[in-house]
């Protein structure tokens, strides 16, 4: 077997692949957080719960109604997105203009409630979601084995991330979002319905999280606490990338997944801490994050 630096290539590439997969999830989730933070200035602690809801809704829709994966890929984010819009409209809007800490606590509370209710009903042991048949098997490459589903996750995550980046940076709607990030009051003074834009933005950010949840359902354990486990890492990714930077969130997400994967090869015990080490270093050297604007 071939080796690089004394590590079998199959192991190296295997972990690299896992890293890119995890990175895809980090990217999708931190992207949603960045979009929401940009316009609403809300640190959305319910983001992990929305990711979890996306996965749970997928499983539940399949169990109860036999809804297949492809339908769930659209339907689950829509359902969860509508739920997000309701949270924005009925809760977050009431504390608009208050200190960040209020929205942080509110979303944290919402996350705990959703998580608690679902734990009560479904327990925390994890639910099964069968891999769609079309994804069974994989590519047998010279240096590694690439399961079809993992390849699909990477591709679709990249497409969604790029699509979101494109819409925000290059379209009129995106210009509204970017302008609203700077001065939403003036935007409203120009005749733009900012409250509606805010609701839809929150809904969209939440949809991205739920979409990641659907992608995760066939490969990760689906349970009510899956969101809180990943959320802390995602926050670290957002901090490293720089608050409010769209491209930064995407690139950092993928990068951190890879770094985590590679650490698993060389020093597995440290793999779950390495992202936080990176965060500390970045904060020391560039407090506004890798892609953030200097304050």
């Amino acid at each position, binding site marked *: 077997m071939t080796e690089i630096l004394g590590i079998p290539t199959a192991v190296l590439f295997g972990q690299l692949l896992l890293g890119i997969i995890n990175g895809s999830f980090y990217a999708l989730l931190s992207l949603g957080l960045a979009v929401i933070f940009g316009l609403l200035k809300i640190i959305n602690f319910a983001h992990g719960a929305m990711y979890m809801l996306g996965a749970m809704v997928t499983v539940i829709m399949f169990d109860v109604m036999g809804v297949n994966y492809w339908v769930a890929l659209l339907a689950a984010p829509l359902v969860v997105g509508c739920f997000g819009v309701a949270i924005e409209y009925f809760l977050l809007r009431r504390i608009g203009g208050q200190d960040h800490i209020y929205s942080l606590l509110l979303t944290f509370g919402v996350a705990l409630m959703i998580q608690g209710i679902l734990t009560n009903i479904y327990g925390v042991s994890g639910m099964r979601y069968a891999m769609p048949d079309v994804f069974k098997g994989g590519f047998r490459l010279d240096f590694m084995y690439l399961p079809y589903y993992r390849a699909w996750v990477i591709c679709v995550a990249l497409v969604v991330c790029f699509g979101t980046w494109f819409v925000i940076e290059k379209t*009129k709607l995106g*210009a*509204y979002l*970017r*302008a609203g*990030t*700077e*001065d939403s*009051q*003036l*935007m*409203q*003074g*120009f*005749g*733009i*319905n*900012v*409250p509606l834009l805010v609701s839809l933005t929150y809904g969209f950010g939440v949809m991205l999280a739920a979409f990641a949840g659907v992608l995760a359902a066939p490969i990760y354990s689906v349970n009510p606490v899956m969101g809180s486990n990943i959320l802390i890492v995602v926050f670290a990714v957002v901090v490293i990338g720089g608050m409010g930077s769209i491209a930064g969130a995407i690139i950092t997400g993928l990068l951190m997944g890879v770094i985590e994967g590679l650490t698993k090869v060389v020093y597995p015990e440290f793999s779950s801490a390495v992202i936080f080490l990176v965060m500390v270093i970045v904060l020391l050297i560039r407090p506004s994050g890798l892609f953030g604007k200097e304050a």
Partner: protein
Amino acid sequence: MSQASRKDYEQLRISGLHAFYGESHILHGIDMEVKRGELVTLLGRNGAGRSTTLKAIMNMVGRRTGSIMINGEETMSCAPHHIARLGVGYCPEHRGIFSGLNVMENLTLPPVVRSGGMGLEEIFSMFPNLYERRTSQGSKLSGGEQQMLAMARILRTGANMLLLDEITEGLAPVIVEKLGEVLVKLKSKGLTIVLVEQNFHFAAPLADRHYVMEHGQIVEEISADELESKQSTLDKYLGV
């Protein structure tokens, strides 16, 4: 059109307007009216409440009471985005150029609220600099260019009443002169303009009437032909 062309058509009528930021009471019962096609200035010292008056018209202050009629429509309960749709174009103090957007994006950001706004061609012929810099980020513009852009973007929307806050502040004389020419042109097109201005020498030859503000109240109303006779009163208020 018949309504719009009438000379005495009242485009803005403010009565008994009070405005608050949190606990602070900024405006203490403003009464003023502006007719279609008029150019009216709000003069006064810093902190007299001139900018707040414009913001209150836009519903951008914390709380307000009284009455603000735009085109005969009561707007006290209107959301800010509905007020713009009545044909009001607001150019804020410090220009409010979005630094993350380029010139073209800044220019086309405000939605068209009425027909009859200027086309891009007309705007670029009025402000040739903006055309040259159309792909530059808002943050890269000079103060003068930012001010041109802030004006240009509300002209495109078709707004027929402009609220302009300190548009000459901190700009070179040659730019100020240019802005004066622009205002004359806009006036001749029949636009209604409310101008908050520190630079009295800029405002005096342009305006039909002046309202002088002090401590959140209007203390004097001076029409253009009374300027000379009331110069000393005005000087007292402006502290020249």
